[in-house]
């Protein structure tokens, strides 16, 4: 066995042990949470979303086709991924690629996802849902999803993460072809990473212009 092999083994064995421990813990968690998780349409199945308009804008624009059934599979398989490939930092300058596991739906996605951008809920409730989704993500990963742009953060929330954890279904009608999460007026939400555990989210409001008087926000913490 040459030096390189020995070195790699020395690094790989503790990591493998850690992976087993983490994997066991996660499997255990999944088993424990499975019975209480409400059902959500699995990939490639028809949605059970109620027959409601997807967005307020759809109500106001009768010429639009109301999306009641999310598209099958991923929202857009040709979506350009702008975040780095997932990997584990091995601590020595090298990384180990992560194969994203099968999606695991977080309870938050089941409980509230249908309300996002619905006419019988307020825009503030939409933001509260997004914050809940972020909280759920943070509870699992102890930090915000990677990135500063809407599509980067949404990628993390929709399962592009080390556990395949889905807190927002990738085929949600509020996600556009670029992978951006839209507000009820069809404008991408503005995500503002303040810290690893704080993310301000803003809707541009009815005028579609950010940073104007009709913006909707729960908390904005600009420097």
């Amino acid at each position: 066995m040459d030096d390189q092999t020995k070195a790699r083994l020395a690094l790989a064995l503790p990591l493998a042990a850690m992976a087993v421990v983490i994997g066991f813990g996660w499997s255990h968690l999944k088993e424990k949470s499975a019975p209480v998780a409400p059902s959500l349409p699995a990939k490639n199945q028809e949605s059970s979303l109620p027959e409601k308009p997807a967005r307020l804008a759809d109500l106001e624009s009768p010429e639009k086709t109301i999306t009641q059934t999310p598209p099958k599979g991923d929202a857009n398989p040709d979506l350009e991924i702008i975040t780095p490939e997932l990997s584990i930092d091995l601590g020595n300058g090298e990384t180990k690629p992560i194969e994203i596991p099968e999606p695991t739906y977080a309870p938050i996605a089941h409980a509230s996802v249908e309300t996002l951008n619905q006419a019988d809920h307020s825009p503030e409730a939409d933001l509260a849902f997004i914050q809940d989704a972020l909280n759920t993500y943070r509870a699992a990963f102890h930090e915000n999803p990677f990135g500063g742009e809407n599509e980067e953060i949404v990628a993390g929330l929709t399962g592009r993460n080390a556990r395949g954890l889905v807190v927002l279904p990738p085929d949600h009608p509020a996600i556009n072809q670029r992978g951006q999460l839209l507000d009820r007026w069809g404008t991408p939400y503005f995500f503002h990473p303040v810290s690893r555990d704080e993310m301000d989210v803003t809707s541009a409001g009815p005028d579609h212009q950010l940073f104007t008087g009709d913006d909707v926000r729960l908390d904005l913490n600009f420097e």
Partner: protein
Amino acid sequence: MRQRDKDHLSRRNFLRSAACAQLGYAGLVNALSQMRLFTAAANAQSSGLTDYKALVCLFLFGGNDSNNLLIPFSGAQRTTYQNARGVLAIPSSDLARIHPNNESDTWGLHPSCTGMASLFNSGKLAVIQNVGTLTYPIADRTEYLSGNVPLPPQLFSHSDQQIQWQSSVPDKPYETGWGGRLADLVNAGYNADGTVSMSISLTGINSFQVGREVIQYVVDKNGATSLWGYGPADNRYQNALNPDGSYINNWAGNRLRRYEEIMNFSHTNLQEEAYTQVIRRARDYEGTVGSAMTQADASGVDFDAVFANAQTNLGDQLKMIARLIAGREASGNRRQVFFCSVGGYDTHATQLPNHANLMDELSTGLKAFQDSIDALGIADNVLLFECSDFTRTFTPNGNDANSSGSDHGWGGHKVVMGGPVNGKNLFGHHPNTSPGGNDDAGGTRGRWIPSTSVDQYGSVIGKWFGVDSNSMETIFPNLGRFDDPISVASANLNFINFA
């Protein structure tokens, strides 16, 4: 930037990595303690100890849009700038022109930065291009997207990037700042007669100056922070102390006397003892700062006049730093580290007018500060360097020039100023500013992958401050992952004249 040889892992490198991983910060602390002793011993043997150096860290909180600080005036870069910056583009004709010695004459600074342009063109200021937090070098967009290189955690998040800039160790939990480690290293050797902490902050406790031994001391634009309740703002102890420092025999005087007696008790409880130490130290330092102000007033420099055009938050902080430097003999310190900062740089909205105001504050403040240091005759002894969370996206976030701004980016251009600077030069490497191009970190917003790490930037500054090559990796533990900024010419980081 050094390209990593990922396929080669020698026994030596493996042992080194494993040792570092095991030791972690504990190792760093021990190494720092040893290096501090070596440095103290070496300096004790050197003659005089009469040299003086002050380091001023200016942090622009919120993420300065340095894409609109250093701006192409003409040429291909200008075309790209004009096209990509959209409503945030500043016309060439408005720029404060600079004429770098080591680059084509095609650059300018923000129109509000006439003072900085003057400093640049007179050789007192330089710009280091595309500096940012890195854990390892990243060659380009392809390598960034590959996932093969560890990235600084929570890129694009304000507080994480602020802390990583100040710690220089993005891949470890924060424990100390590199300014604090610098102070720990040099304090014993240079400040044996010091009567105040060598780490002074103008804007509260900060991460940069947190060390193991040297405790940062906070003052404000008016000087020392005094106890309240014993007099008006311009004379905090007027009601309690006589001019000779004795207690006035009145209610306020007796209250202060008793309070200080209580604070002089010693306690077996560590928290109680630490609390009283803070108070005692603050009162001692207050006296030193008062003496420094007296010396500054006698320096012959009219600081109010020099800062007449810089009566801003930043200008006031820099004026106090200049006065403290003028009164340095009172401190007994031969090495001092100052920290000052301003916020408001998170220009997501209404950027053009807001950033113009910020650049005006920055430029007038820096010009006045340098003028005051020049007037004190110690230009070669003071170095100011600037930091910020990150620069901002090259592309705007809207189409309306009145309301649009820019969002969180990554690598940005940094300003260094002072007599030690190889001024009138641009250092580092300007990024390929094509959105979606080789230097764009994913997407097409123009978030530049840094070509110079904080470690490289800081280590050049650290060398000037007295850190020798043996100690450098105790201050910047990740420095070895990058090209040596001094010896590797292609790094283009010789922004300090060490002669």
